[in-house]
């Protein structure tokens, strides 16, 4: 499948991921996050984004990767779509690119890859395309309540 894609590309551990720019409102530096009691462990807490209160999720924890260490490059990708408003903590944002003629292959059938809609080659690396809604739609405790 050949597509024209506009992606925010970021890294998590050794891997590269991409999210459609249409779903990303902005990218901010790591900020003070207020933890909220009694919520899933991958929910880091909430963030004050110019007065709006936004939940923040650590993708390391969501993907069961080794614990993250915050650096100068750590970023929060603010996803803002109709279905979902959330900040995703990533290790670094490498680029925002407009990729014409991207060759996207379906995601390998791995259980852990259920958040990934496809995989593509770009600049010599593999990029997994992430659907942010899928990150949470299978969460029983958050459930469908996130949607809408």
């Amino acid at each position: 499948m050949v597509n024209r894609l506009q992606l925010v590309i970021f890294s998590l551990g050794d891997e590269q991921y991409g999210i459609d720019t249409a779903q990303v409102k902005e990218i901010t530096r790591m900020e003070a996050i207020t933890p909220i009691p009694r919520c899933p462990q991958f929910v880091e807490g909430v963030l004050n984004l110019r007065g709006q209160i936004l939940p923040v999720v650590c993708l390391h924890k969501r993907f069961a990767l080794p614990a993250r260490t915050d650096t100068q490059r750590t970023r929060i990708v603010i996803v803002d779509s109709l279905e979902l408003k959330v900040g995703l903590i990533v290790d670094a944002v490498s680029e925002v690119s407009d990729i014409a003629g991207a060759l996207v292959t379906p995601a390998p059938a791995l259980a852990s890859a259920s958040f990934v809609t496809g995989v593509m080659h770009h600049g010599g690396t593999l990029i997994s395309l992430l659907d942010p809604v899928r990150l949470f739609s299978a969460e029983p405790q958050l459930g469908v309540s996130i949607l809408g």
Partner: protein
Amino acid sequence: MVNNDYLRLFLDEAEEIVDRLALNLVSFEKHPSDTDLLNEVFRDAHTIKGSAAAMGFTQMASVAHQMENVLTVLRQGQIMPEPALFSALLSGLDALRQIKHDVYAAGKESTYDLAAVVASLTGFSQALVETAAACDIAPSAASVTHRVEITLRTATVMKGVRAFILLKRLRELGEIVRCEPKEQDLTEERFEHSFVVEMHAEQNAGSLSEAVGQDGDVEDVRVTGLAAPTGKLRTNLEKQATERADTKQHSVRVDVNKLEKLMNLVGELVIERNRLANVVGNLERASKDNQQVQTLLGVSGQLGRITSELQQEIMKARMIPIAQLFSTFPRLVRDLAQNRSKQVELELLGTETELDRTIVEEVRDPLIHIVRNAIDHGLESKEERLRLNKSPVGRVVLAASHEETNVVISIKDDGRGIDREAVGRKALSLGLVTEEELRGYTEQQVFAFIFAPGLSTAREVSDVSGRGVGMDIVRTQLEKLGGSIEITSELNVGTEFVIRLPLTLAIIRALLVSVEGRSFALPIAAVSETRKLNPQEVRVVQQRDCLVIREQIVPLVSLASALALPSAASTPEHLVIVFSASSKVALMVDRLLGEQEVVIKPLGPFFAANRELAGATVLGDGSVVPILDVKGLLGLLRQQ
């Protein structure tokens, strides 16, 4: 397809009119000689008929038309006002309300079985001689002073609506005596492009022409002045005109969502202002003598004052008079009283008292509940009242007023009052209290059992005590709003419920506490007291730590463990005693950080399952603090 702007206008107007009709009809039933009231009712029925017809809502127009006919006969004195007539008019009003509701939901009428309603109405209007005046506009004694010739543009899409709006505008300036073609034909679009209105107006021809000419759909308007009215008529009309000017409010309709958005923006502005004040304060400490910093300090202070004022004003814009809520009661009381064969007089006081519109919605049900109980159980039957040397007519007074930052609503009846002994006995039998405790209880404390779930669901005591079922739900609902309710009562004299509500839900007073290095806000409305923890006071009851506070056993809980916070080596030294309904809990916290007003922001669907949280707020330094929901927290504790 109906133009949406027109539809919205129509619905807004219809709502206003239907509410006003409900009030006026009931009050007219009580004062049948009040012709001003009858005229207003007639005008409203006439207006809604016209606008419904213009919008193509034929069933609505037809019901309103039938009501108008009955009112015409009434105005002509051909029939006497009697309860059955009002019931017919009110059932007509119910039909209007139903249709309006459907139009609001679906944009169109559905199909109604209006036969019964129409039949009961036409039964009264048989005396009506069908004259042009009767089914067209109100017969008017006014003399014609102006002839207004209006031509609409050929491209005008909805001529009927346009004509209706123009007539309405002219009515604001004077009295319409005649239309050519007839008004009904105009609003039902049975005319070419021009029509003539003959009217009585105090204004000069220029202002009439201007009022009509400003409409974009008007091609041409010509106003001719005619003879001036006679002296007596003039004073009468002048009086009417000033009355009209007095009641006409200078206002625009604003979408609630827009207000909501403004409120949010101002909330953010308040937060940023606080941050700015913090930063400037730090700057000043660092470089005291810097002239620029001093200037900045002044600017920041001024900005702070303006922001506060802006916040106040926007909060006021969200306020609506409680009259909107009270207006449902005359009808409710009338129907209930008829149903129970009791005579009840309802008095509404302080109807201009304003409160947040969200609160108005939420407090409606509890209020209806209390009023219904007052009539069902509180007020005695006519015979019983006479035996007790009371007036046969029972009284219910609904009163609203402002008290500091609260709205106070009182519901008072002159019925049998609450039997303290009966309530106490029932509380004893339900094991809510021991005999010894009960002896030491004040009257207030005993009455408070009315709100206990077990007791308020017990029917037998309700009738004895003069209170109905479900008072626990009333209290819960009010507390959810940050409000409270109190009872005073005297046997055979009456009962008064006093409800206190915050002016707004968007901003609350909160107590900030810290546990394990984290801050939380507790709504002050749910805090009964704070004190230092004295370890000697702690008792163990059923393997749980408790305190005895004023002879009441209060569970002692660490807030950190209630919220399942990772525990460090902190030692909670302070107690915050919180309550919801009749349960109290003493929460152990590390520190009390003080009280302040906070803007409540929703946490969003991610935390929907966290019912111990009411939301979050942003403090002056930009940090986020979760706001605890005491009811949810106590629910959580019960599960643990």
